[in-house]
């Protein structure tokens, strides 16, 4: 998967769990909880959608590594490659 594909998959997952957020409005360093106002239930739903879409099971201790778009693209790229 290319970086762009991962980015698109992450944004699709994020807007599916938080339909009131628009993909274009999400900056690379916007924090899920602090900037986008996701709560722990939303984050868990996001992890579940990413698991389904990409087959990557993100353990709880790695949640901080998907907290922004740019962090997530790097982390998911490494997990998909490894």
């Amino acid at each position: 998967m290319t970086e762009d594909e991962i980015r698109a998959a992450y944004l699709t997952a994020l807007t599916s769990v938080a339909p009131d957020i628009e993909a274009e409005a999400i900056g690379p360093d916007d924090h899920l909880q602090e900037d986008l106002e996701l709560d722990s239930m939303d984050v868990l739903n996001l992890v579940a959608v990413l698991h389904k879409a990409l087959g990557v099971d993100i353990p709880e201790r790695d949640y901080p590594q998907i907290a922004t778009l740019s962090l997530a693209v790097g982390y998911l790229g490494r997990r998909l490659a490894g």
Partner: protein
Amino acid sequence: MGLFTMPSLGADMEAGTLTEWLVGPGDRVRRGDIVAVVETQKGAIEIEIFEEGTVERLEAEIGQTLPVGAPLARIRGAGEATEPEAAPGTEVVAPEPAAPETPEPQPQRPAARGLAASPAARVLAAERGIALATVTGTGPGGAILLADVERAQAVAQEAPDPRAGMRKAIASAMAKSKREIPHYYLAHRIDLQASTDWLSAQNAARPPEDRLLMGALIARAVARAAALVPAVNGHYGEEGFRPAAAVHLGLAVALRGGGLIAPAIRDAHLLKLDAMMAAMRDLVARARSGRLRSSELTEGTITLSSLGETGVEVMAGIIYPPQVALVGFGAPRPKPMVHEGVVTIRQSVTATLAADHRVSDGRIGARFLLEIDRHLQHPEEP
């Protein structure tokens, strides 16, 4: 013959707009059936019926904004005779006029779509592309006047905050609570390390779909503790306090962009952890997408408000009437605590109770908070 009316969905609701009928004349209905969808300040709510019978006649039309108590439909009970047909042309039931106002020429019969509106109002609405169903009429019988269309357009142009209605509803319920309920407050710091460790171990072995949140452990503890302390669980009405036999746990759900809604999980004291988690997931999703059921907004017997993982430590909440207690949970934090005689860093959380002094006092409230604490020390309990 039963009359099915616009229900009150809380101390803060005055009116609702009918947006969908899910039944029609001749349909059989049973207690608990969802029969209509009403748009309120809390979003679209699925309205349940609490009667058995057959729908005789619909008394309200899609798009009408009706006050609480206005007739929506007539329901014929089993064995009752069919009502004689009403005279044609008199079927439209409009909301009660607030006060007689300047009469403009009115069409004598309900016009297209059954909405009463003056000819001038119709022309203007058509010119400006405003749907008449979205305009609140102030004329006789709720008829839409020219001024109503102008006002509707002005409001639309101001592009009001969609949450403004909800803010108003929260303001009115909370002002009523502060005016009428003598609140007292208690706070208690709970050692959350046992629950935190147990949860991490559980979740490490579960796929994301099956993982649990600390919120579910907290909700279970609150519901089970409330079942043991009747004086915090129930409704306060005109005849005083009525304790509830079951715990229907209201869950304060924050909406992105502001606003709050507290739908209830039925029989929460009986739920095991996975069932509690599933119920919370479902409720939060529907609260956000706006498809809650009317009973979920009215049945809550106590409310839990959690400030989330990244929030502050302590909240002093306001009771949601007619309930008599609200439990607040701050954000869990690592804190120096004395554990087995030694000061160590432990994950902790501060629980607060706002309770109604007409019903309980500090000693009972303290017992309730300590009971919550006890449950959180035993996360493994079934």
